[in-house]
């Protein structure tokens, strides 16, 4: 049975070593671990691309076990996009493999001299750095294919694309699904550039097992895992909604609610939303021999992913709601084929789809590309791989693009582009965008716990009242779930089933041989948020950074003609716990 350890790589000296995990980190995983390590080891004022920043990759607390949908991975560091702390969460197969090798976290540190690229290979026999200049400049799909040919058809490949190599702040870190699609992104916040600054092009993880991470109390764990599977299979969201249409089923719904940011956040509805909806996607994908449902890692029972065959013979797997929105209605693009191509290019170049879409929206606002012109958007995006000035602007994110072209209508918080819900049409999410230590982040307030139901009731999405409390509770619960390795989508079932949270806690107790309660879970969520927030304060953030851009207060959003009117004093109460 593997002993749990840190894999620390000094990229300056090329020393690779395994370390025993200090007591305080023993039960941590995912976001709790990356954020705590970054808090403990990275000076908050350091240059994100300099020698003192670190890239931390950690499987969740339960990853690598047979708990369903628990194979999510966290990537953390100081963000070159926001200047604050960052955790980005990804599916894919790397997390389970790392956990099965007993690796609690990979820590890339230091900054190498010179221009040579390396690949970190991790197997049951150990870890080594291998020269990888031959992979430099290549897209993520090709890198993944080459590595799977060289090191075995089942290895997981964590990699960056040309955008990460060029240290562009919208670059993400990706890894692949079981089919070898390098599309499972820890996308947000520019962590791909941090990996690029360490001159690590790829991390190859080879593990013979997927579900055999050590358990302190195996029988108890098995029973709890069975129960949790049942909870997921009984809930309509996790058993029907997600598997049938994936997350893009939200397109029509958010459009109906009048909160679908359209034409760079000028309107709340897109007249042709149905053309790019999940329903349409499922229809086309199936007709072309793709799949409307697909798991991003083995053992996911919710299977929200899809395989969308493109007209050019390639496949985009998956097209998720956030990406479809960013590259679709946000740009007034009404073709799933165009969205799929843009999404594929982002995946291949190593770019966050949300940041890229928001940036293209700002460029359209500036008149550099016409709104609705898919071909022009594809052409512009292709410039990223060539490293032209326009390409580098696109890869630098919406805030930079806005500055370069003198645009004021720039939807960012802490320098990060807003995702697919307009905060004027749904004010609670606006509170989360404004105050999350991550910058505008949809997943930050995604989860919901049973305690919401008790205190909750109905909060009018168009009114400011009650939004702060709602956002706070959601952020706490999310910080916890992001640490477990569970996909955030389990949250829906957990909310509706009073046994949901206790079962998750039971799994954690059995895995680590401790007694972990629901209170402990919420305490952990709070601790994570506090560490992240303190890092940001030390990095120089103030309450002025916890605000939405001015235009959300000034410009009414049709069709409901609302503005964002949660008061600044109230926003400052979110972290009052």
């Amino acid at each position, binding site marked *: 049975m593997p002993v749990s350890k840190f894999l620390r790589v000094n990229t300056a000296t090329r020393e690779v070593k395994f370390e025993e995990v200090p007591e305080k980190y023993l039960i941590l995983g995912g976001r709790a671990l990356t954020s705590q390590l970054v808090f403990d080891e990275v000076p908050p004022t350091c240059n994100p691309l300099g020698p003192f920043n670190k890239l931390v990759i950690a499987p969740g607390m339960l990853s690598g076990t047979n708990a369903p949908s628990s194979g999510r991975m966290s990537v953390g560091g100081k963000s070159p996009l926001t200047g604050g702390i960052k955790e980005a969460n990804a599916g894919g197969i790397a997390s389970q493999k790392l956990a099965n090798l007993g690796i609690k976290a990979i820590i890339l540190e230091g900054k190498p001299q010179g221009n040579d690229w390396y690949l970190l290979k991790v197997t049951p026999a150990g870890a080594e750095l291998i020269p990888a200049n031959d992979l430099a400049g290549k897209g993520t799909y090709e890198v993944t294919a080459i590595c799977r040919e060289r090191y075995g058809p089942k290895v997981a490949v964590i990699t960056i694309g040309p955008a990460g190599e060029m240290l562009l702040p919208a670059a993400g870190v990706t890894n692949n699904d079981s089919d070898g699609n390098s599309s499972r992104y820890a996308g947000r916040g520019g962590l791909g550039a941090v990996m690029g600054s360490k001159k690590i092009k790829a991390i190859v993880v080879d593990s013979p097992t997927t579900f055999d991470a050590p358990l302190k109390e195996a029988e108890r764990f098995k029973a709890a895992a069975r129960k949790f599977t049942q909870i997921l299979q009984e809930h309509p969201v996790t058993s029907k909604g997600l598997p049938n249409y994936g*997350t893009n089923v*939200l397109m029509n*719904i958010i459009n109906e*609610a*009048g909160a679908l940011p359209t034409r760079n956040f000028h309107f709340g509805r897109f007249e042709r939303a149905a053309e790019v*909806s999940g329903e349409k996607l499922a229809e086309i994908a199936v007709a072309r021999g793709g799949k409307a449902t697909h798991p991003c890692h083995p053992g996911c029972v919710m299977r929200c992913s899809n395989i969308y065959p493109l007209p050019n013979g390639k496949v985009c797997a998956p097209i998720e709601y956030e990406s479809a929105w960013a590259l679709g209605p946000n740009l007034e693009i009404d073709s799933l084929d165009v969205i799929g191509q843009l999404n594929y290019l982002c995946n291949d170049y190593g770019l966050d789809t949300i940041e890229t879409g928001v940036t293209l929206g700002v460029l359209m606002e500036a008149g550099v590309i016409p709104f609705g012109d898919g071909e022009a958007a594809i052409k512009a995006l292709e410039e990223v791989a060539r490293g032209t000035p326009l390409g580098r602007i696109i890869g630098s994110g919406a805030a930079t693009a806005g500055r370069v072209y003198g645009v004021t209508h720039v939807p960012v918080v802490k320098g990060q582009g807003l995702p697919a819900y307009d905060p004027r049409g749904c004010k609670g999410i606006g509170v989360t965008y404004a105050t999350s230590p991550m910058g505008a982040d949809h997943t930050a307030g995604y989860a919901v716990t049973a305690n919401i139901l008790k205190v909750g009731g109905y909060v009018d999405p168009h009114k400011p009242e009650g939004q702060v409390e709602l956002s706070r509770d959601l952020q706490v619960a999310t910080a916890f779930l992001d640490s477990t390795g569970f996909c955030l989508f389990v949250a829906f079932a957990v909310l509706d089933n009073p046994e949901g949270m206790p079962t998750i806690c039971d799994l954690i107790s059995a895995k680590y041989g401790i007694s972990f309660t629901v209170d402990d879970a919420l305490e952990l969520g709070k601790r994570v948020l506090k560490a992240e927030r303190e890092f940001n304060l030390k990095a120089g953030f103030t309450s002025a950074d916890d605000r939405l851009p001015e235009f959300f207060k000034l410009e009414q959003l049709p069709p409901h003609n609302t503005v964002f009117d949660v008061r600044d004093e109230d926003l400052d109460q979110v972290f009052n716990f």
Partner: protein
Amino acid sequence: MARVELRAFGSLMNIFSARGWTFPAEVEIFPGETPGTLMERLGIPPEEVEAVFVNGRVERKDCPLQDGDRVAFVPAGIPSVHRVMLGFYGKR
């Protein structure tokens, strides 16, 4: 004659296509009509409808409908934080 503009999403959309309805469909309403009575009259199983939008807001199934309203039926199983944020729970 009073009418509403009706939409349905996800699996409920299949009912539209199976019956050859346009999307959106123009549907006549009667005095006192609510989303609930409309469902019943159109033979849309109420247990498959988790939430109802009227003019872009989540409303209860017994809210009175007016001429020209934009109505949409949301099936059970829609993910996202909006289950809470938009009121799928609170307006049940």
